[in-house]
């Protein structure tokens, strides 16, 4: 692998000064939540380690992950990241096409057996033998299996690869299946979101290259540094939540004041992601800052949780279009009505019994006395 340039060599070739390089290393360290002591380690790794080959495959997806990825600011995706990784196959970004492209993938698999990272954007549909997604004349699921066989690790980009996303939403006609349910024998790191934040994507790759291992993952296999907390936990509108100040309707006075979007169905309290800290587009904003609630795009099955704009959402799991309050309210109302009727009948029966018992009542008391 010595014929592959190191990251540093590539960067210098592109006219990046040593000073800028060190700056980049410290920014990356900060982005990953590492202390200043790690800056030289990142620099050293980039100077000495050969670039890691990456095969980036696309299944059923919308390319929003790629779109997000190429907009990363820290580290800059454009030149730097595309040089950091040796992106040997990515049918969306590569110049080659057709047979040439497929040859590049096979070539990479052969040359770096067990050493390349497989990045998966989208997921394979399994119904009809995978015919709903064809790449290079073959079902995508075959390409995925082929590429995964000798991969060192797999990155599941986005909600599609991680959980299934919209194509796997009920009733999932193509049986779109997340990557970890198809490939079960490789370490898989899940980077959910629709799309994931650009800096999260590049941060994960940088970490894997720098330390030559997967970052710390949580129970669901997501990098803990980015998915360890909910949007809600770090939301700048949280004080309004605790105060009980909510946007009541779109564009009301409270919306203009920037109150909490909880009542408008914000899914921040159930969504694990870094939007409220890292934000989007070089840290410019994120949905809540723009006045729209979080839709929970980095959570499992977020399309199947009823409306994006309800707090108490419909219970779609049971195949009914009603929420807990409607079901519970009807049940409680019916029971209360039943009780009222039962009370009335009980009172009538008791009165009836008293009338019937009257002649014998005297006897009973005599007996008892």
């Amino acid at each position, binding site marked *: 692998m010595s014929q592959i340039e190191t990251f540093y060599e590539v960067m210098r070739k592109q006219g990046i000064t040593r000073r800028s390089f060190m700056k980049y290393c410290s920014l990356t360290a900060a982005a990953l939540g590492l202390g200043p002591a790690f800056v030289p380690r990142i620099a050293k790794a980039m100077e000495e380690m050969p670039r890691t080959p990456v095969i980036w495959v696309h299944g059923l997806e919308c390319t929003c992950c790629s779109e997000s990825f190429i907009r990363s600011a820290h580290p800059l995706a454009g030149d730097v990241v595309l040089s950091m990784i040796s992106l040997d196959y990515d049918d969306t970004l590569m110049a080659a096409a057709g047979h040439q492209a497929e040859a590049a993938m096979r070539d990479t698999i052969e040359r770096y057996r067990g050493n390349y990272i497989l990045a998966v954007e989208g997921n394979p549909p399994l119904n009809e033998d995978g015919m709903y997604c064809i790449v290079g004349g073959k079902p995508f699921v075959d390409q995925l299996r082929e590429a995964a066989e000798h991969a060192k690790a797999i990155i599941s980009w986005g909600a599609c690869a991680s959980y299934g996303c919209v194509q796997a939403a009920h009733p999932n006609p193509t049986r779109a299946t997340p990557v970890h349910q198809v490939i079960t024998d490789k370490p898989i790191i899940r980077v959910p979101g629709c799309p994931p934040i650009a800096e999260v994507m590049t941060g994960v790759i940088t970490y894997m290259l720098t330390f030559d291992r997967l970052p710390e993952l*949580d*129970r*669901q296999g997501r990098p*803990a540094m980015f998915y*360890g*907390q*909910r949007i809600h*936990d770090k939301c700048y509108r949280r*004080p*309004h*939540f*605790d*105060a*009980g*100040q*909510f946007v*009541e309707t779109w564009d009301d006075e*409270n919306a203009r004041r920037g*109150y909490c979007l*909880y*009542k408008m169905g914000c*899914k921040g*309290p*159930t969504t694990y992601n870094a939007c409220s800290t890292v934000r989007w587009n070089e840290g410019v904003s994120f949905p809540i800052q723009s006045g729209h609630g979080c839709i*929970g795009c980095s*959570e*499992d*099955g*977020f399309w*199947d*949780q009823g409306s994006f704009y309800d*707090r*108490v*959402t419909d*219970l779609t*799991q049971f195949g009914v279009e009603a*929420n*807990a*309050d409607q*079901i*519970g*309210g009807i*049940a*409680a109302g019916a*029971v*209360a009505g039943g*009780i009222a009727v*039962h*009370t009335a*009948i*009980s009172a009538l*029966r*008791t009165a009836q*019994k008293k009338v019937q018992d009257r002649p014998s009542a005297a006897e009973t*008391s005599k007996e*008892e*006395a």
Partner: protein
Amino acid sequence: MSDATPYGSRDPAAGLEAARLTGDATESDLASVRRRTSVYVYEAPVRLWHWTNALCILVLIVTGFLIGRPLPSMQIAEATHQFVFGYIRFAHFAAAMILTVGFFGRIYWAFVGNHHARQMFYLPVHRKAWWREVWHEIRWYGFLEKTPKKYVGHNPLAQIAMFFFMTLGLSFMIITGFALYAEGVGQGGILDAIFGPLREAIGNSQILHQMHRLGMWAIVVFMLVHIYAAIREDIMSRQSMVSTMISGHRTFKDDRAD
């Protein structure tokens, strides 16, 4: 019973001087007072649990409802100094903690307390006689039986309700509730270690929220039926109901056997 007392055989009403002197006791009353008796059913810890549990559930339902559907926005002070929703959530969590401790205490008491303290935690489904009694109770509530039966503890129908709504129902609410609470506490703690896997098994925690809310409604329904049945039985059955949960004594209104 009356024969065992010193005055029993000669004069059934003898010895009840206090009752006699107040003047509001007929001869038949005095005879009745001599014979009818009570059984000590609910020991103090059970009663204490019942009422703290009832209070906690009331607080939990009201605050829980408001957590899902908050009150209209209030502008009392700046957000920094205003903590309305925070206090509502605090009350919910505090009541939940008390309820949980109480529930564990109640389970402990099932082991060390009297026979009646265990009744709520199991259903004797293997006993045919018990099913017959269930059927009898259903007929009694369906106005098909003229006279109810005497029960010392829960009647079979009440036992079923207690088992499903309290033993299982409270367990469900405690588990789902703590799984949601663990989210707020954050990853890495003890609560997360215990309840995190459950949340992950369910998938999206929005599902967990809705299940917890549906559970709340189930408890509301139970509350309605429980209070109605307790008052109705207090009036129409042959034993005391409401006061039993205050004094612990089940008193009987007649001396007849079933």
